[in-house]
């Protein structure tokens, strides 16, 4: 049984294009709104931050926690989602 959610599978299946930030695994409505308020209104902007942090897990997770208050599971889901997307499309 796969440990990744449906959201994760959908996200990593195709280029993200103009998808909203709430399309990311681990990012729901509440966290998505907080990210949008900070200026991260699209998934690719969060991707940009992920890349600028050199795809480092610790840094990215800490940044996510500080920016929108994500818990450990949400951080992990978002990180692994972006990482897998990068492995496929970057």
């Amino acid at each position, binding site marked *: 049984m796969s440990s990744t959610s449906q959201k994760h599978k959908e996200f990593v299946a195709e280029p993200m294009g103009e998808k909203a930030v709430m399309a990311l695994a681990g990012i729901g409505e509440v966290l998505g709104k907080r990210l949008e308020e900070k200026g991260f209104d699209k998934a690719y902007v969060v991707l940009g*931050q992920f890349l*600028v*942090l*050199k795809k*480092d897990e610790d*840094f990215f997770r*800490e*940044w996510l926690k*500080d920016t929108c208050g994500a818990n450990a599971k949400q951080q992990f889901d978002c990180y692994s989602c972006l990482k897998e997307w990068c492995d496929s499309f970057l």
Partner: protein
Amino acid sequence: MNFSNKTDKEIAELLDQYMIKHGPVVGSTRKLYEKKLHEALESNEGKKSSPLKTIYQEEEEEIILTRSALRPSPKSELYTDWEARTTEMDHHSAYNRKQYSTEPTGHSFKYQEVLRDYKDESQPIRSSSATFRNVSHSKPSHMTAPVKPTTIKDSQDKRYIPIWLQFMVFILFAGFLYYVFTNMEVTPKNPFEHIN
């Protein structure tokens, strides 16, 4: 330490100094890296405080040893102090060098304190080391600049006990042990004597 007035480049250099792998320091990453630097500074201060404790205790013992060497004290006490000092010196010689280079004024201040305590002979001197531990915590430790090699020579020139005296004491102790050992020799008896 406030990092907000530093440029992005300086932040990057500080991260390199603390061996923190990082990406570019830009608007969105700056806050995170400043936070990392704060954590690194705090962990450094934590590591520094414990060796400072032992350094102050060790320096205090050195001073006690010089005073006891001047007075006619029993030799056994001298040996134990010397041995304690050399074992601690082996472990903390690296920290000791840094200590000499960064805070020389603190050392002289402590020396006066020890003299004051030493005059009161009724209480044992070692118990006062606790006060020095408290003193060491109040001093703010700054970022360690690269240690200059010249300070190592300075610390080695300042010997409280001359090296020849140390060697003589060592040889005397070795001779004493040899004397004891030779006197322990058992007179050979025939193990196959008939038991009546």
